[in-house]
């Protein structure tokens, strides 16, 4: 079995908010996603990925800002990891 990983960055902490960023990692080796390889997100919302069979396995924690750093901006806050598990495309290897 091989894992397909989809990372969606959402507009808020709600899973049905819209996608603002995305990444793909392909454990089957069939595709080679990389930085800057597309302008259109694969799904409009995190919920739409669930509808398409992706399984959520991690979501960003909601962490209050550090005192004194309330206005700092950094990484995207609302990161959701999804997976699909597929048959090994190279059985026996």
């Amino acid at each position, binding site marked *: 079995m091989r894992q397909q990983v989809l990372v969606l960055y959402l*507009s*808020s902490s709600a899973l049905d908010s819209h996608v603002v*960023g995305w*990444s793909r990692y392909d454990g089957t080796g069939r595709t080679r996603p990389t*930085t*800057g*390889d597309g*302008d259109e997100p694969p799904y409009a919302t995190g919920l739409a990925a669930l509808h398409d069979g992706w399984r959520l396995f991690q979501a960003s924690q909601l962490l209050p800002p550090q005192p004194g750093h309330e206005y700092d*901006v950094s990484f*995207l806050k609302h990161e959701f990891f999804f997976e699909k598990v597929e048959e090994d495309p190279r059985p026996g290897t």
Partner: protein
Amino acid sequence: MPTSKHLLTSVQVARFVAQGSLRLDGVVPREINERAVATLDGGLPQVSYGTPLSAAFARDTFVHELLALPLVAGAVESLVGPEPTVDHHAVHIREPHEGHAQDLHADAIIDVRPDAFDIQLMYYPHEVTTAMGGTLSVPGSHLRRINETDVGRVQNLRGQTRLTCPAGTVVLLHHGIWHSGRRNDTDRRRHMYKLRLNPTVPQVRLWDTSDLHDPAVAAELGAGFPWYEQATARLEIHNRVLLWRALTGDDTFDVEYWVTRVTNRPTQRSQA
């Protein structure tokens, strides 16, 4: 400030503060572009850190001619002032059919100076098509505090810029911008020349300020980008206002009421 040197306008500088970049499409003449391609293939001599720009490049080099173009010289002076120093320069070549893009990153190390910034001049001496993997950059990412490739997990952001441009294009970037050299899926080498410049004077009203109070300034500073999270987008505007206050020396400037509201402390003031 005089306007004879092709200095930027306040609206253009406000756009740079919001977006973290300024594009000058096709501003370099063909003869400089052709010399640049020939030179870049052979590499460039090192320039010592901190060398004054005016002393860094001989008059017969393409870099000297590039920096002497009025539009380029005016934009550079508007952002980092007269007599900046050279931080470093480099030739970036993306080979044909490279398998992987660079991870998304900001250059150097995390750099959170609130009232100063370096610029990175990126010069593309030949046309860049989509398939050639022009530089990916993320508008409005320059004030996000990340260290180099720590953000490399992120592959795509809505509204990202996958640069395509005519030959002779110059892009000026704030040092904090998130960017990446994209995968080159063609048979042709892609060249880019990068020059980082450090200011040597306070970066206050270095541009043509005759339009400083144009309503378009606030409109630029309040611009949103498709990849911003709903709540963080407001912090971005707050932080741009602080940078604009530093660049103009006007500590009353605001966009709507974002900074004024959260710095209003009448009780403390009345007890002082």
